[in-house]
């Protein structure tokens, strides 16, 4: 235990500002690995016990007794000076827990969608979710050993990803690689939110690209 804080400081304690970034993707895409690679602490696991808060998503209408489900999330932390603390949350993958995503996504700086080229479709739900919610996100293609390497353009096509959305290759096990992914995301979120390259929402992409096939 560190310094003793006197109660006179009550209410005057300066706490850093907490920021969250979500790491999404299909099961086994490397979410926790990425979190662990960049986190200053061993990834921790927290559990949300969901009860009637989930009504409307899990259909509990008419169920009198409280139904509960536990969803686990892994997360890590990066301290940025005295003023900011970044928390990285691996999102629970199951579709039926998306109401929990809403809580997580609220106030998030942005999201990294991890794609595994062997199971590209696994990350579709994440892409749909963040697109719909207008949460800034990028796609990071995790290069698993033994997986066939694709050109990023091929993956972009496979995901029908808008050209404004960055897509990068990464090795989720490597700290440097994870760092680059996060930097790409923060730069993208900044562009989106501060509007240096933003266009009115709902506008079509500038070029008349036709969908492949």
């Amino acid at each position, binding site marked *: 235990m560190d310094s003793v804080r006197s109660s006179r400081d009550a209410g005057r304690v300066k706490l850093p500002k*907490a920021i969250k970034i979500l790491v999404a993707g299909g099961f086994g895409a490397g979410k926790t690995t990425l979190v662990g690679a960049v986190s200053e602490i061993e990834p921790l696991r927290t559990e949300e016990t969901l009860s009637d808060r989930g009504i409307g998503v899990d259909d509990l209408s008419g169920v009198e007794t409280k139904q509960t489900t536990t969803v686990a999330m892994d997360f890590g932390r990066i301290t*940025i000076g005295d003023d*900011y603390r970044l928390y990285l949350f691996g999102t629970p993958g199951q579709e039926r827990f998306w109401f929990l995503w809403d809580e997580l996504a609220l106030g998030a700086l942005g999201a990294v969608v991890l794609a595994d080229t062997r199971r590209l479709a696994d990350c579709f739900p994440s892409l749909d979710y963040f697109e719909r919610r207008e949460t800034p996100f990028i796609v990071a293609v995790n290069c698993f050993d033994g997986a066939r390497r694709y050109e990023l353009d091929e993956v972009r096509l496979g995901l029908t990803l808008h050209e404004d959305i960055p897509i990068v290759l990464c090795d989720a096990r490597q700290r440097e690689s994870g760092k680059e992914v996060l930097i790409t995301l923060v730069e993208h979120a900044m562009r989106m939110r501060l509007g240096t390259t933003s266009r009115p929402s709902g506008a079509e992409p500038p070029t008349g690209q036709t969908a492949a096939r």
Partner: protein
Amino acid sequence: MSIFDEQPESQWVGDEAGPIVRPYVLTRGRTEPSRGRFDLITLVVTIRQVSSREPGLDPECLAIVRLCLQAQSVAEIAAHTNLPAGTVRVLLSDLLDQGFIAMQEPHSETDMHDERLYRAVLDGLRAL
């Protein structure tokens, strides 16, 4: 319907009780904090020292107060105390009412339009 209805004891012990009962015993049945939103990244810091024999403080609350001598997020508190985040939120609202902790809720999405925030985070990440 009421929990006070007579139930055979066997339903409340061991595996039959499930892992869910205990967290709500700690919160005396409450599932929502009385005040504060307590987002997973809300930061909490202890502002009043406690002795280990502080009357009326559950061991779990005592553990939280000790843990938060250094600021912790709700998610971290939940992970370190092995309690579901929902339970921790209720306990934190009690501790807030009792003046043991101070907290900082994260700001809303509108706060995400502060360029300084992005610059600071980018500089911090590059320096890692």
